[in-house]
């Protein structure tokens, strides 16, 4: 069994409630931080841990925190990004539903470190039942002296509020989230200024993902140095992976970042192999926006080495032969799946979610969707494939926020690795509407991979 830091107590009956959480060591890290450490000492531990943002970008958390401006007399804010909307990603939902106090404790320690007295959890509107769970946890924490005024007699004050979004993927982007929290459309802001200088209501603000903030709790418990011993290299600690698609055991798994992709897919501890005895065709390992990889490149890097479930491992080979860990939304496609159709659903998604501020994204996402619809419906031309390539290149890097890139990458990677499948759709329009292209050589030279030794 892999070591766990976030879900180590998730199986305990009633861990959702304060008494059980507390009885199992909960709020021990907060106690340690608030009573025996200065904010800068906590920051030092987080820096030493090597913790990187778990929302997708992977930026070092300690460094992000150190950027926060501290002008005299101006409040600072911590905003917890629980907008979780990247297709394939559902890890934060699990954490908030089952161990809400882990997040509350993480918010408390982080707010103390940053010097924030108000903290907002911005949660996607569709998770409509979770705010109640969080609010109950907040009320319990408050009743027991972990929130409110003069927390545990330390003189530190903190209020945590839960704010629901209303259905907009773009609000997962930190400046769009801030706009939304201010009661506006979720249009991303031009950076700089960064939120650390000018964020919520123009005050210094840090926006972090749920999992990132929860990870601060074990970091304080075991120490930054010890946390950094988990994982490999710069991929320290554990990561929540939400696995879905055609696998035997979809769900949320906490992995130590030292296992291989093969072990993650095939071992019974995690995904349990491909469902219905099928073969693996492709995988999008970090949420819909990261490049899709065919089975042969997924399990082994272009150098022939085993690919690891780490930031560096998944990115090995760049976009030519690699992908990204992203948010940990691990989407698996079996041999019966059509790459064109899968790409079309993502193109439709990004078109729907584009905020419309930047022309390349607003127009380009719709254009890609229409071209992909034509190819999927047997009305495509050979030149459409090059057209798609051309459109995605013109979106990438030409927008205010990363949604443009997120829309471009899935299309680019699908064409890069599965061009013959697109061509087959164009050349065999009748057949393409009835059956799928199958595996071809994508899985070569791998046979049905044997489960890795656990």
């Amino acid at each position, binding site marked *: 069994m892999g070591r766990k830091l976030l879900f180590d107590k998730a199986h305990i009956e009633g861990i959702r409630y304060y008494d059980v959480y507390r009885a199992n060591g909960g709020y021990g890290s907060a106690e340690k931080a608030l009573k025996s450490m200065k904010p800068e000492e906590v920051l030092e531990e987080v820096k030493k841990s090597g913790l990187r943002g778990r929302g997708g970008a992977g930026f070092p958390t300690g460094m992000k925190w150190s950027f926060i401006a501290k002008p005299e007399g101006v409040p600072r804010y911590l905003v917890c990004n629980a907008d979780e909307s990247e297709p394939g990603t559902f890890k934060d939902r699990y954490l908030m539903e089952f161990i809400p106090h882990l997040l509350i404790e993480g918010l408390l320690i982080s707010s103390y470190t940053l010097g924030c007295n108000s903290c907002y959890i911005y949660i996607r509107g*569709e998770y409509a039942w979770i705010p109640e769970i969080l609010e109950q946890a907040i009320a319990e924490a408050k009743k027991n002296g972990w929130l409110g005024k003069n927390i545990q007699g330390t003189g530190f004050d903190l209020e945590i509020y839960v704010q629901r*979004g*209303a259905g907009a993927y773009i609000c997962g982007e930190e400046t769009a989230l801030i706009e939304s929290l201010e009661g506006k459309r979720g249009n991303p802001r031009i950076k700089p200024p960064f939120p650390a200088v000018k964020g919520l209501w123009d005050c210094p603000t840090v926006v972090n993902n749920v999992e990132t903030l929860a990870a601060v709790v074990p970091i304080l418990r075991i120490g930054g140095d010890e946390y950094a011993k988990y994982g490999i290299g710069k991929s320290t600690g554990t990561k929540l992976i*939400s696995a879905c698609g055609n696998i035997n055991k979809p769900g949320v798994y906490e992995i130590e970042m030292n296992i291989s992709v093969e072990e993650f897919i095939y071992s019974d501890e995690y995904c349990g192999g491909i469902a219905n005895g099928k073969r693996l065709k492709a995988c999008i390992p970090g949420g819909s926006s990261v490049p899709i990889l065919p089975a042969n490149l997924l399990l082994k890097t272009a150098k022939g080495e085993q690919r690891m479930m780490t930031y560096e491992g998944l990115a090995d080979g760049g976009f030519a032969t690699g992908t990204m860990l992203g948010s940990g939304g691990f989407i698996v496609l079996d041999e019966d799946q059509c790459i064109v159709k899968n790409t079309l659903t993502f193109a*439709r998604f990004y078109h729907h979610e584009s905020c419309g501020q930047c022309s390349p994204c607003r127009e380009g996402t719709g254009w890609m969707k229409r071209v992909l619809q034509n190819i999927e419906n047997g009305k495509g031309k050979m030149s459409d494939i090059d057209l798609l390539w051309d459109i995605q290149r013109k979106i990438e890097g030409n927008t205010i926020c990363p949604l443009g890139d997120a829309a471009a990458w899935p299309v680019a990677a699908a064409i890069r690795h599965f061009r013959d499948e697109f061509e087959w759709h164009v050349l065999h329009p009748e057949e393409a509407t009835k059956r799928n292209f199958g595996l071809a050589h994508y899985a070569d030279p791998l046979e049905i991979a044997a489960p890795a030794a656990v």
Partner: protein
Amino acid sequence: MFSEEKLNKVKEIIARYPAGKQKSALIPLLHLAQEEFGGWLSAETMDYVASLLQIKPIEVYEVATFYSMFNLKPVGKYVFEVCQTGPCMLRGSDNIIDYIKKKLDIGVGETTNDGLFTLKTVECLGACGYAPMMQLGKHFREHLTPEKVDAIIEECRVKAN
């Protein structure tokens, strides 16, 4: 108009933000209004929310039209919001959508004649591991099969009577 109880809730929400930043309460108030006033936001409802927050009506309209959870037209009593994005598609969401269409004899975006059901397709709701799925009111219905859809429709009919 909100009831006394809801107006207290409105006050409580506004108190979450610093003085003068009451506009931040807009999205929570629109959720509250939609729940309270028949599942959708009419122009009158939006104007009312604007007056509660002392902002211009256009500031409400531009937000209400941006977020997909706000309905700007009347909807059925029960709205089936079926996810159709990649991970759900891989697990057969197309079949579920087709099944609901046939079963209720409506297309996507339409409401049954009795005003009970509306079918919507939506993009990823964050339940990819439990696909195919749909949102029904506040909750998710996951691992959908035709049999489960039948049971849900029956459940709604019973509740409506």
